[in-house]
């Protein structure tokens, strides 16, 4: 439904550009571009909307080419038949709620009576029918967001673009809107491209996600797949908390599949590599909840290690530990019953399929900023 082929946009400052992206969003799919600010996700969406003209690449919507830098083709946004919700909501302050929603229909020269009916249907869909004649500046943030959604959907576009629509809401409302928005999308079956920097939003709502960094997609796939099997350090860190441990590879290379690496635990640990890793060093990534606290585990067993609890934080439903194994500290997230005490010696199982072996440095990564760069001591992240 949305297909982008090698689209790029470079800005003179060098920041926030897009350096060549391929996307293929299927009909009815909820597809999310996930990444930090400045990664190019919004620019990518704006190129698809037609608000930014790509420097390179082709875009087609429902099979119809709308932009081609090579052929000099550029269909203006007004002619692309897309619905879009802006981060600021962009509710016109001089129009009432109903007038805001009616606008796309009036542009399409629909009959007055039909417009009213469609507007009311759209407003009912977002539970705002009783607000129809309110002046829009009097709405709360959550209401504005829903008006923006009604306006984007009222003309029944085949493609819906959502630019961080939940980021201006407070945490509780954001959580509620997440489920509501996903249900609505599934009900309408509208192909949706969603932009966010919030990994929970992306994982919770999407059929597929693309993790972006520095104008490129670093990994794309179903949310669970990206979460469980990150292919690089950035994807591992940006989709959730993880332990990143620098480890040595005997022989300077590990082929795809199971490998034994030296993670500083006193003896080798098994890890899974999706692709062959070259170099003496690599990163082992394991998520805190993947580590099992085993009562009376046998350290002679494979994947089982003894450690000491050096930190314990009770969070209610889970308890977080920092456990020292050998020279390394791991963050472990576990259930709250039978919680071991501080300084207790515990046994941990590190399931081999959850220990992901990643390249030591990400491909083509620009120099990471100091703030996001963890110290490579194997300390828990």
């Amino acid at each position, binding site marked *: 439904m949305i297909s982008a082929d090698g689209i790029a946009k470079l800005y003179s400052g060098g920041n926030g550009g897009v350096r060549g992206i391929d996307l293929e969003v299927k009909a009815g799919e909820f597809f999310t571009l996930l990444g930090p600010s400045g990664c190019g996700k919004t620019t990518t969406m704006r190129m698809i909307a037609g*608000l930014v003209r790509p420097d390179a690449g082709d875009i087609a919507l429902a099979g119809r080419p709308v932009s081609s830098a090579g052929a000099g083709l550029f269909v*203006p*946004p007004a002619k692309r038949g897309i619905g879009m919700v802006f981060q600021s909501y962009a509710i*016109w302050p001089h129009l009432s709620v109903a007038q805001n929603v009616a*606008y796309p229909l009036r*542009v399409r020269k629909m009959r007055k009576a039909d417009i009213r009916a469609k507007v009311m249907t759209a407003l009912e869909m977002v539970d705002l029918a009783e607000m129809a004649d309110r002046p829009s*500046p009097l709405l709360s943030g959550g209401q504005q967001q829903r008006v923006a959604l009604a306006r984007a959907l009222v*003309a029944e576009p085949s493609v819906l673009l959502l630019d961080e629509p939940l980021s201006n809401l407070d945490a509780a409302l954001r959580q509620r809107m997440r489920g509501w928005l996903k249900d609505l999308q599934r009900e309408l079956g509208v192909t949706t491209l969603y932009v966010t920097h919030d990994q929970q939003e992306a994982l919770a709502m999407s059929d597929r996600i693309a993790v972006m960094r520095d104008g490129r997609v670093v990994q794309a796939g179903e949310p669970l797949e990206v979460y469980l099997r990150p292919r690089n350090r950035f994807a591992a860190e940006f989709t959730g908390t993880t332990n990143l441990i620098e480890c040595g590879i005997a022989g300077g290379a590990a082929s795809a599949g199971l490998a034994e690496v030296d993670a500083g635990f006193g003896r080798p640990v098994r890890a899974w590599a999706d692709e062959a890793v070259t170099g003496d060093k690599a990163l082992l990534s394991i998520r805190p909840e993947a580590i099992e606290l085993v009562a009376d585990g046998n350290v002679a067993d494979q994947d089982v290690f003894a450690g000491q609890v050096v930190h314990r934080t009770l969070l209610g439903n889970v308890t977080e530990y920092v456990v020292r194994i050998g020279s390394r500290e791991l963050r472990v997230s576990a259930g709250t019953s039978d919680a071991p005490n501080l300084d207790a010696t515990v046994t941990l199982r590190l399931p081999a399929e959850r220990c992901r072996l990643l390249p030591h440095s990400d491909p083509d990564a620009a120099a990471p900023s100091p703030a996001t760069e963890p110290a490579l001591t194997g300390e828990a992240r």
Partner: protein
Amino acid sequence: MPTSTAPATDQSPEHRPAGAPRSAPRAPFLARLRGRNIPVTAVLLAILAVLVLVPLVLIVWQSLTNAPPGEGASFTFEKITQVYGTSTVLPLIRNSAEFAIGSTVVAFVIGTGLAYLTERTNVPFRRLAYALILFPLVVPGTVTTTAWMLLLDKNVGLLNYLLTLVGVHQPIFSAYSMWSMIWMQGADRFALPFLLMAAAFRTLDPGLEEASAMSGASFPRTFRTVTLPVLRPAIVACLLILFVENLETFEVPGIIGIPAHIPVFATYVYLLANNVPYDVNLASAVSLSYIAVALIAVWIYYRSIRQSERFAVVGGKNFRPDRLELRRARKWVTASVMHLVLLITVVLPLAMLVYLSLLSYYHTPAHGGAPPLSLASYRWVLDTPEVGSAFVTNFEVGIISGLVAMLLAAVIAWVVVRTKAPGRKLIDGLAFAPIAIPGTVLGLALAAVYLAVPIGVYGTIWILVIAYVSKYVSYAVRATHSSLTQVDASLEEAATASGAGGFRVFRTVTLPLIAPGALVAFLYVVTLTFKALSLPIMLTSANATMLPVLTYNTIQAGNYSDVAALGVVTTVGLAVLTGISALVSRRFGVARISGAL
């Protein structure tokens, strides 16, 4: 009195007898003012009443009598009938309306067009455009008008002469017409609409327009149904403030309108009060309608800025809009048009000014080849005692007025922003009202008041100080007001909680934080005293001549080269002052004064 609420019962540590027990912690100065602020409010109201209400009352009284106060005046409707019972006032209203509306439209169209191009498109050379657009702010209108007069004059105008070189022998331009008055005023005043509309474009959420495009609307439709309505409050405010300024201005109506026999309110009031036969009562009667028009405009303006504040609730963020990408040929055509406009409206009169200042006297090259250049006019500026004393007077009056206006404004803003004092809305309104009192009318009234009240103010610099403070305190209030609202009250409370006494809090926290805003306001007032003519023209005496008035008198004497030299020197001085002001605002992030209006 505010001083009566001062800590009379408190003893400063120095005066506390040795060994005496420390007195109970005193309530902070500010907190006490907040509790008992009626005296401060009363003092402010009294000051503003003297500055604003007395002149207004006097104008009304004078229009209903037949002599100035103190000269055996008796009550009569004679002057009112003379003005409003005959057709005297009709051509006056028509001329004033044509001039003010016409020049408002010219200035608004140019200023808004430039603001759109520099804010929302990628047109090249934007920095140069900015400099050219803002430069007229430091050039006194008297000299710009003189330059235009000599450019456009039917017989000796440079432009008509240049046209003869290309074979056009019938003069096309003429300086002494309503059209040229409108052009001169409009072309000189587009910096203000530029600043106001640039600010509006900057705070306009580009998403509002993009959402319209995504809804399928074409660019013209988006402009008509989204951009214009959303900007409407800003546009209305901008048009009204321009209208009021153009209604009160004296430069173009005085220099061009009087010899062209095109009287407007400002010049009519001036002529009645300063030319034989003097009739200040008739002048006052005319002023009534003059004030009424200005008051209505200011009232609508006041309402519309409140409306735009309501709209601002929606946006109110910083936007980083994508500039409209002009491509290839269109980009360069747009740049050429923009700089051609700036060349004609800004560079042309300035070049004329500099050229003029280097001639010993002006004549067209037709009268015996290009005249030789000379520095005689600059020598005149340096050697003439009247010029030196006008500069000194202007500096004295400007600095004293600026200081007083700034301090008064700081107190007014503090009371309005920080206290819940009864009457603070009235104070705010009274401090804003002088914008609606035209300079000539205020001058007329103050002259009468201080002639009648013999406290030795009339004929000295002090009547000028009073006049400038009354007129410009509103600008200063708005500047300090906005910097004070940016200072959270908790900053003061934190100082109090740290144990600082009331005055110490004000001195060490409040004052330093609002100082940059206050300094910018001060420099702005000083700049205005060097530029504006409408107020001092009514109040200058032989011992206290302001620079704009000296310039006007030199124009009357026909010494245009001297006028130009005077203009160049003043402009350089004002450019330095404005440079300082710009540095201060950039350093401390103060909104430009005119932007705050």
